[in-house]
């Protein structure tokens, strides 16, 4: 957080500009030494993503196939774009409630991760999935069944969370 807390805004702006300037001259140097191609050829070529990456939010699925979410509605409340819609219902399981409907409108999600931070159950997790384009707006509306991902596939992120957040 140190880089953002600079008291003088001009210094903060110059620090930001310095990044661009550094890359500009760095790449200029590479170009003068003969490099022609500066693009990453997605999807054949991919960057290695850092563990802090926040891809689309998904729902953690437990070994028994059920969601971990108890439909408490905190993520729904925390979400700044109001893209989560939950309708809770009762279950005979010990947890008492589960989301009968859990929808995320990915066309509105801005991958801020506030839902993940609000969740008391570690049930909504920012996955590493970033390829979520679709041909229709309807396709951007993800329902519970599409959002469920087994917990063990989310380990990179949950480890990162436990390391970096006070839980």
């Amino acid at each position, binding site marked *: 957080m140190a880089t953002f807390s600079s008291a003088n805004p001009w210094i903060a702006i110059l620090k930001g500009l310095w990044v661009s300037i550094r890359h500009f001259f760095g790449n200029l140097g590479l170009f003068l030494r003969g490099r022609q191609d500066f693009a990453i050829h997605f999807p054949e070529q991919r960057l290695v993503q850092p563990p802090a990456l926040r891809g689309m939010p998904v729902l953690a699925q437990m070994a028994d196939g059920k969601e971990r979410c*108890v439909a*408490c*509605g*905190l993520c*729904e*409340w925390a979400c700044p774009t109001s893209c989560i819609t939950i309708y*809770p219902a009762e279950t005979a399981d010990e*947890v*008492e409630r589960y989301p009968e409907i859990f929808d995320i409108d990915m066309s509105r999600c801005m991958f801020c991760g506030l839902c993940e931070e609000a969740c*008391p159950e570690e049930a909504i997790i920012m996955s590493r999935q970033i390829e979520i384009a679709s041909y229709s707006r309807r396709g951007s509306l993800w329902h519970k069944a599409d959002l469920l991902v087994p917990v063990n596939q989310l380990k990179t992120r949950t480890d990162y969370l436990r390391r970096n957040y006070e839980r």
Partner: protein
Amino acid sequence: MSNPVKTVKVTVDNQVIEAPEGATLLQAMLDAGLDIPHYCYHPKLSIDGSCRLCQVKIDGMPKLQISCNTQVRDGMVVHVADPEVEMTRKGVLELLLLNHPLDCPICDKAGECWLQNFSMRFGARHARTIDTRRKRGKRLDIGEQILLDQERCILCRRCVRFCREISKSNELFIFGNGDQSVLDIYDQRLDNDYSMNVADVCPVGALETKDFHHRMRVWFLEDTASVCPSCSNGCNIMISSARGKIWRLTPRRNDAVNDTWMCDAGRLNYKFVGDPARLRAPMVAGEGGPAEAGWDEALKRAAGAIADFVKRNGARTLGAIASPHLTNEENFRFGEMLRAIGAGRIAMAVPRGRQDDLLIKAEKAANARGVRELGLVSGEDDGLEAMLRACEADEIRGLYVCGGDLLEIGQKERVDAILGKLDLLIVQDLTMRPRHGRAAVTLPATTFAEKEGTFTNHAGRVQRIGRAIATPPGWRTDGEIFTALMNELSDRTEQFELAAVWAAMTRDGSRFAGVAFDSIGPEGAPVAGA
């Protein structure tokens, strides 16, 4: 009245507050707007002194005192912002949380829970216990409407006192002592006409209504102050809505009407607002039976049918049934419309049912008294028998019927026969009922939750209702329907604007005279003579 209550002065942390003599210190501090945490004290129940959270330091007393059971004295000096008081509160809250389950994510009370709120504001932020938490009964089905979670209970006995003192049915008790204490029912289930109030008095989520269980989080709810439409007592309520839907009704305090209570029947009677069977568009009679029509067309048809009828039979043969479910303003406009036409007779059908001596009244509609105060109807039965006779004798050949109550008065055959032979029938109702089939036009009515206005309760208190649910675009509320028909039939250009209607309604000679629209506060205002 002759002996006004003396007020005394109390100093709380250097602030001087006034309170009537004999008041409890806690109530005096709460009335002065001070934020004093407390659980077991409830203004409408006897004092229990069991939670120990309201303790304060009083000069001259050797130990901290519970403010809920201390009377104010003139010159009393009280300390609240005091390390000893703060430490005591922290201790009390820590003990309450010792065995509390971490149920907030699945607890209906979360967001309006006193244990959450006071723990966050006055408690310690971290638990120090390492022992396992006590297991108790969860989701216990203890009554028709209520679930009990014994783990969440903080043993404040508010619910016990409610059942003993208010509903007087004595279903709930605390069994065992010390940390083995547990709330439960004993020889009878929690089934009384007011049982759901225990979920309101419970400061935590130990008692929950089945109706609201796991349905909506309270932080999404928007509250609209209103009045219960289900009987003439006119209990003050909050309508809690979200996503265009009502999720629950809860009582709103009004010491002149319902204290802090309401009956279960009233609380549960909101589902008709979102009933999919409700009329969504006007229906006009056609070749193959009633068919949907646009508002403007339907209103033109209705006005045309009335005009035709009057030309053929004379205005005096037109009768009207006023509705005790509509507001004072709407009924006033209804009267104006009927006068403009020159209609012959008005009556009112009021559904009736059981009553008791706490809140529940026999008249199962909110505004019967309002219709009477407006002078629209008179007589023991609001002119109904005379109206039915006049219809049978063909003196009345056309009826404008507001609401479906005529079909509920228990004279099915008779009403059927009458509706069957009328020359003109115009109906305004929430749903299309089979017997509306003969109506030239059936206009959709609007529920109490979708409009503003006032009701007059059985004792003559005028109280405002609020709009919690939006109506579809182009919709006409009942008052707007009457206004449109009146304009069409008598070449006027009136609007249905509440303040203006109210002003016309309170002109000299009216029973409502002297009550200014803006003077009707959250607790209502009595009509002259009431």
